[in-house]
């Protein structure tokens, strides 16, 4: 039996683009799972819209990654033909949707990082990354505003919504640190003015969270340990299930189009 799986020779730039692309695709996929299940019609539409933005950003990034790879692969090959250990997304974005509070907390944590990250990346010395960032930063501003407003409403709402929002925050907080991690290959790109140092986003991330949590009457957990491993392909069990769903058709019928 032939395998449909592919492995990429990850140069520092390709590795960077895959991290950003996989974050966008997996978060977009998770959000798309809400389609038809939102707590109300407007929110169902909003979550699907945010999912669409994420998948759109992922497409642009995979297209660029395929160009960098240089073997004539397409954006679809990168999404559908890499195994779980080849995925470079952070663990936060693959966490299950849980209840609505968990989805909102995950979105606030991701957006509070991605929004300033993409804004800073608009100044990248790499013109393609800068162009993708200029689109993405307009979109992530809406994602952050939307999810932050919801978190305030939930935290400062009823006893039940407050309790659920705090529980979701306690559960997901240890996953937020991985957003700000990088490695030596990425540091090299930072020195070349191509990438933004994720750690440099920390002050903006902290300031946003402090403001939103204060308004939401929620408390940032005191834990300092962090979950980590996604950037090197060590994922939680959840990603395998996502890929089984996402990749099924191309794995069962390689190259199928319609």
């Amino acid at each position: 039996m032939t395998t449909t799986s592919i492995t990429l020779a990850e140069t520092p730039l390709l590795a960077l683009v895959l991290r950003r692309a996989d974050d966008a695709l997996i978060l977009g996929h998770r959000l798309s799972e809400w389609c038809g299940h939102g707590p109300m019609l407007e929110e169902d539409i909003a979550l699907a819209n945010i999912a669409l933005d994420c998948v759109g950003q992922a497409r642009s990034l995979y297209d660029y990654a395929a160009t960098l790879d240089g073997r004539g692969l397409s954006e679809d090959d990168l999404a559908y033909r890499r195994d779980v250990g080849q995925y470079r997304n952070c663990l936060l974005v693959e966490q299950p949707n849980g209840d609505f509070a968990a989805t909102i907390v995950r979105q606030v944590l991701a957006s509070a990082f991605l929004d300033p990250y993409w804004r800073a990346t608009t100044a990248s010395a790499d013109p393609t990354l800068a162009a993708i960032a200029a689109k993405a930063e307009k979109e992530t501003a809406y994602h952050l505003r939307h999810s932050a407003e919801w978190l305030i409403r939930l935290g400062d709402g009823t006893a039940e919504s407050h309790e659920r929002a705090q529980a979701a925050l306690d559960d997901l907080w240890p996953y937020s640190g991985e957003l700000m991690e990088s490695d030596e290959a990425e540091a090299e790109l930072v020195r070349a003015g191509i990438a933004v140092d994720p750690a440099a986003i920390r002050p903006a991330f902290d300031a946003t969270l402090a403001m939103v949590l204060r308004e939401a009457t929620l408390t940032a957990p005191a834990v300092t340990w962090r979950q980590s491993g996604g950037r090197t392909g060590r994922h939680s069990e959840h990603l395998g299930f996502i890929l089984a769903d996402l990749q099924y058709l191309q794995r069962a019928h390689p190259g199928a189009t319609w």
Partner: protein
Amino acid sequence: MTDEALAQAARAAAAEVCDPEIPVLTIADLGVLRDVTVRDGAVEVTITPTYSGCPAMDVIGVEVQTALAKAGIGPARVRLVLSPAWTTDWMTDEGKAKLRAYGIAPPQGRASRRALFGEESVACPHCGSASTEKISEFGSTACKALWRCRACREPFDYFKCI
């Protein structure tokens, strides 16, 4: 036909293509049509998406080809560019007037980064009242938000200013 005359004819044909989601606007009104060039008889049409995930781009590409074919212009290359990033500042005044007449509040003012919180003031496209409220940042398409008028009680779409 000279390259220049061909470019002019191609531009006129492409500019008539309507946005599939908001058929009252052409891609020229929206600022999605960026450029039409001809080199040695080869036509290239450049378009840009409003949002990264805009699902209308493939359809727009096909419709540009169809419009050019109808105008008797041979196969063209449709190129998608991301930079410079589309902004509602590119929407023409005519486009904004068409949107309002269609029942969609046009983007207000110049695109600039808003504060994380704080409301915009959007006039109702039906009755003109400034007494309106936002229902959701996200509407029927990525580029629109859902609003409601307190005066005439009608819900309406607002074309987000980005």
